[in-house]
């Protein structure tokens, strides 16, 4: 479980006089494994910022975030590395998440370097994860630019799944996709949650998608989180 306690984030920007921006203020919420917390709000940096803070990509916040009871800002390797693997993020732009100069199999193999799976098991691991996300091994030899948005999103998911995460922050994962592809990806996410007990923080501006995917729902407004549904 990931627990946020009084998390706030603000920054000063501007010239000549710095303007203070409060992005998140006093956010407390519990994110459970196996369930989805839907996060809605106006287009802006608030939702994504919260997602990045939960994942540990942004460290300059105030407040406490605990992962399995431990404060993530106090974690040192190897605990930090463990956290890094278990809590992941899927970004909005499907093509943006993959290195355009790398073939798909190279991108996947790179992730295996982190997992330290022995070489003779790597091929199987890649085949398995491709099967999980619904793609054939034909895709291994292609480059991201040759894949559609939905396919790229699946590959990005495959990379994340290779690390066997417990929790995934999904930042508008289907906003850039066609309607039919969106349905496929949402279906896939639900299956993954069911089969692997993954927890999701699902960020979206689309109320229908949030309703469909989430157990609990919160709305981020002026930096504060209003929880409107508990599941």
């Amino acid at each position, binding site marked *: 479980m990931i627990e946020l306690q009084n998390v706030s984030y603000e920054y000063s920007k501007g010239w000549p006089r710095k303007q203070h921006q409060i992005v998140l203020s006093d956010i407390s919420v519990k994110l459970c494994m196996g369930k989805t917390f839907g996060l809605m709000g106006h287009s802006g940096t608030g939702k994504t910022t919260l997602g990045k803070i939960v994942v540990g*990509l942004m460290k300059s916040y105030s407040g406490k975030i605990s992962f399995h009871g431990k404060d993530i800002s106090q974690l040192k390797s190897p605990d930090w590395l463990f956290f890094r*693997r278990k809590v*992941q993020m899927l970004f909005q732009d499907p093509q943006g*998440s*993959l290195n*355009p*100069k790398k073939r798909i199999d190279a991108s996947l193999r790179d992730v295996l370097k982190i997992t330290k799976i022995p070489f003779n098991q790597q091929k199987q691991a890649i085949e398995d994860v491709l099967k999980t996300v619904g793609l054939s091994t034909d895709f291994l030899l292609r480059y*991201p*630019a040759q894949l559609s948005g939905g396919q790229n999103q699946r590959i990005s998911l495959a990379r994340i799944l290779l690390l066997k995460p417990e929790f995934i922050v999904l930042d508008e994962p289907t906003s850039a996709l066609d309607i039919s592809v969106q349905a496929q990806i949402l279906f896939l996410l639900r299956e993954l949650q069911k089969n692997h007990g993954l927890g999701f923080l699902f960020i979206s501006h689309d109320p229908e998608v949030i309703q469909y995917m989430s157990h609990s729902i919160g709305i981020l407004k002026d930096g504060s989180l209003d929880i409107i549904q508990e599941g």
Partner: protein
Amino acid sequence: MKDLIFQRKKYFTRIGGFLFILFLLIAIFSHFIAPFQLRDRFDPFLPPGLKHLLGTNDIGNDLFTEFIYGSRTTLLVGLLTGAFAVSIGVLVGLFAGYHGGVIDELLMGITDVVLMIPRIPLIIVLSAFLRPSVGLMILVMSVLWWTSTARVIRSRTMQIRTMGFVESARCLGFSNWHILFYEILPNIVMIIIPEFLITVASAMISEASLSFLGLGDPTLKSWGMMIHHAFQRGGFLNGMWWWYIPPGMGITLFVLSMVFLSFAFEETEIGMGEEVAIVPFNR
């Protein structure tokens, strides 16, 4: 209209590639191509003829042989300087662009200081105190020539650093080293190569200029040295154009070949647009 540009680029690239490989082969296989030895002496001041394609110099050395062997030194100086300078530039640019903040300020400060150092005068001064040699030239040029590469690499790295796949890589848990050398570097290779080519060209011209001024290594026959000797030993006064024009043309053509080659590496923005096809660098 766009096609016209592509067509022209294709021809430029091919000519450039051909010349580059030609000179490279001449330099590598000098032993086999040169008709005589550098030390052989024949009748001096001979004009070009069947036996001596470029005639002979004031002490009777065959000039064609000199030209062939001269390519070695010139290319060596150029390529080595290019390799070292670009390596330094890439490292500085990558680190400055990726880490930002204090490291960036520090590295860019160093770059500014190095930029202030006048290159050719420094070599001239050093040559006055130390024995002029090829090694010294390569060393000094490498240490001074990396700045523009560093700047270019830095700005490109800063651009790429903000792209999604870098953030994804950090999220997945890749170390900074991995990201720098395995994620970002492949995306800047297309910029490094033209930088290398331009640096080589610049180094070659500098070497020729320094040799011409008499600061080159007197024991090695570079093209610059040939021109220097031509002027010093009466070649110019006697109108022996076959002594100084060929090495000059050699430098010009080689530099041109690098410039043409660098055209091949211009490419559209990576992954910025919608449907970006895989663009091989030789269209």
